[in-house]
């Protein structure tokens, strides 16, 4: 049956009837995909790719915010940035704040996700409650927390004073200021990450838990031997997103000290804040562009390291399962 039906169709190309309608339809089929994707590529090319490439061109010149382009200086701007202590300081601050936020955040988020991954009453209510901080914008978060962490009359120092503890120099100390800024980041993102991890946890087949429970594995044992290995891909996703976000942190340190860019001694000046300060306060566009490109390279590098580590972890997977099997 089907063969007889097919035959006329196969015959058609032999005797092409290129009516206008058909040609239009053919053209439609060929061109449409490109038409659909072109807005993205055109707009992205203008507002995303071109600026990145042009930044490199600017970084090769002396370039002033108002006076504009000056002499071609080659890689001099890069050399200046690499010889600038504030650049290295800003990198140190960025990584310090990143680690202080990412590590506790991830641990708490996994814990919170495990708590939420139960047969809860009012499930949606609890999920929404952990997500509440996410809808407070970073600017509002920064304003609220910088008042809580104020050195005089801040909420935290007041409370500590009640217990006879000396006020902590949240804004002048290096480590305390990093902790304060990391707290802002953690407060906003922990619940969000917990929900992402929760989604992964819910997809772990329940019979795995059941058989582990029958074999006598306790709740902690089940968590470390089943849950954690199963959500590894999502963990990697969360880590990578947190890293990229952490390297670009700007609003929190900017608003923590509105007068100086990142504290009087730059004790919490992050690299993006340094870039902003160099370009728009000191008006040195050439050097700021060099900072932008160095930061870009660092982000690519960190992305690669992340990728390699996550591959490592993924291959280390088999040891764990073997271990658990032996136990049973």
């Amino acid at each position: 049956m089907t063969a007889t039906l097919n035959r006329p169709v196969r015959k058609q190309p032999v005797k092409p009837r290129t009516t206008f309608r058909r040609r239009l339809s053919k053209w439609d089929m060929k061109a449409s995909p490109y038409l659909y994707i072109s807005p993205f590529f055109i707009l992205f090319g203008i507002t995303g790719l071109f600026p990145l490439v042009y930044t490199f061109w600017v970084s090769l010149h002396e370039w002033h915010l108002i006076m504009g382009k000056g002499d071609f200086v080659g890689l001099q701007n890069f050399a200046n940035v690499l010889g600038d202590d504030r650049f290295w300081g800003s990198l140190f601050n960025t990584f310090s704040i990143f680690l202080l936020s990412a590590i506790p955040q991830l641990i708490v988020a996994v814990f919170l996700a495990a708590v939420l991954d139960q047969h809860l009453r009012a499930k949606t209510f609890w999920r929404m409650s952990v997500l509440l901080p996410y809808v407070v914008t970073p600017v509002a978060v920064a304003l609220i927390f910088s008042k809580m962490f104020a050195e005089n009359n801040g909420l935290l120092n007041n409370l500590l004073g009640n217990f006879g503890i000396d006020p902590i120099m949240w804004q002048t100390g290096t480590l305390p200021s990093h902790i304060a800024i990391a707290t802002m980041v953690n407060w906003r993102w922990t619940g969000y990450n917990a929900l992402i991890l929760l989604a992964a946890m819910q997809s772990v087949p329940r019979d795995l838990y059941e058989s582990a429970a029958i074999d006598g594995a306790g709740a902690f044992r089940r968590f470390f031997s089943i849950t954690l290995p199963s959500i590894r891909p999502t963990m990697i996703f969360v880590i990578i997103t947190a890293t990229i976000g952490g390297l670009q942190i700007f609003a929190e340190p900017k608003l923590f000290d509105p007068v100086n860019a990142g504290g009087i001694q730059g004790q919490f000046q992050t690299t993006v804040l340094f870039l902003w300060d160099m370009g728009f306060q000191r008006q040195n566009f050439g050097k700021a562009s060099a900072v932008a490109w160095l930061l870009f390279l660092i982000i690519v590098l960190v992305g690669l390291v992340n990728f390699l580590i996550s591959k490592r972890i993924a291959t280390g997977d088999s040891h764990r399962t073997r271990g658990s099997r032996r136990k049973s």
Partner: protein
Amino acid sequence: MSVLQRAGAVPGTGTVSGSGKPVPKRRGVRSFGSDRRPGFLTYGILLVFLFCSAYPLWWSILIGSNGNPALGMEWPPLLPGGRFWTNVAEVMNTVPFWKALGNSVIISGTITISVVIFSTLAGYAFAKLRFKGRGVLMVAVIATMAIPTQLGIIPLFMVMQKLGWTGELGAVIVPGLVTAFGVFFMRQYLVDVIPDELIESARMDGASMLGTFRHVALPAARPAMAILGLFTFMTAWTDFMWPMLVLAGNPTIQVALSQLQSARYVDYSIVLTGAILATIPLLILFIAAGKQLISGIMQGAVKG
């Protein structure tokens, strides 16, 4: 990868993806421990988290309504005072609050509509249409997701200056009109959701490409479009650095808020009132669309 794919069948997200294997229902397994109702400890922990999530906001309301003297107290007050509306008026006097709010709505709204439309178009093409260079172009889209937009601000600023757009909303809108994430997100969603046969049969019935898109792809894409729209709106609304650079004189709500504390005399209670005021619109959105936002985040883990 299989774990990620299976997560598509999370209850509530509504899609069954990839593997096509049915996931065992949670309620089916009655016999084992963790499916029983959890005890007080669980709810205690969740209450502590609820307190930590809500207290900073509550504290801002307390200080905003009690005024600066409340900051000097050893223990913060427990209940709001009567100064809230005075402080609200003060916020309105210090910064152009309504203008800024309007600017934010226009900017975020335009960006959201544009990102959703263009992402759906491009995502559909990448997911379901065959054309030359598709693989390479898709890799290009994914690669551009890694480029932080902040790195291009210097030439972008020069362009806006040259065009005379500083202070114009277009300076913030145009760079936000498309996102690589949006294209990627829609592609991932549409690959699973639309069966190829459906497109073929629409084509056989003589529908044009655009007609097929409108009648087959658009209805199927609607849930993902809602989620993408919500996220895009959030991102555009919370953006701070770029609007601060190009819209200093005609601020968005975030920039206006930050200007509160750069006034010569900084009144903390007014700054905190402003922070609360600026949070209210998103809070309303959150209450209205919170469920969808949550399912979107849960799905983000799957598709990311």
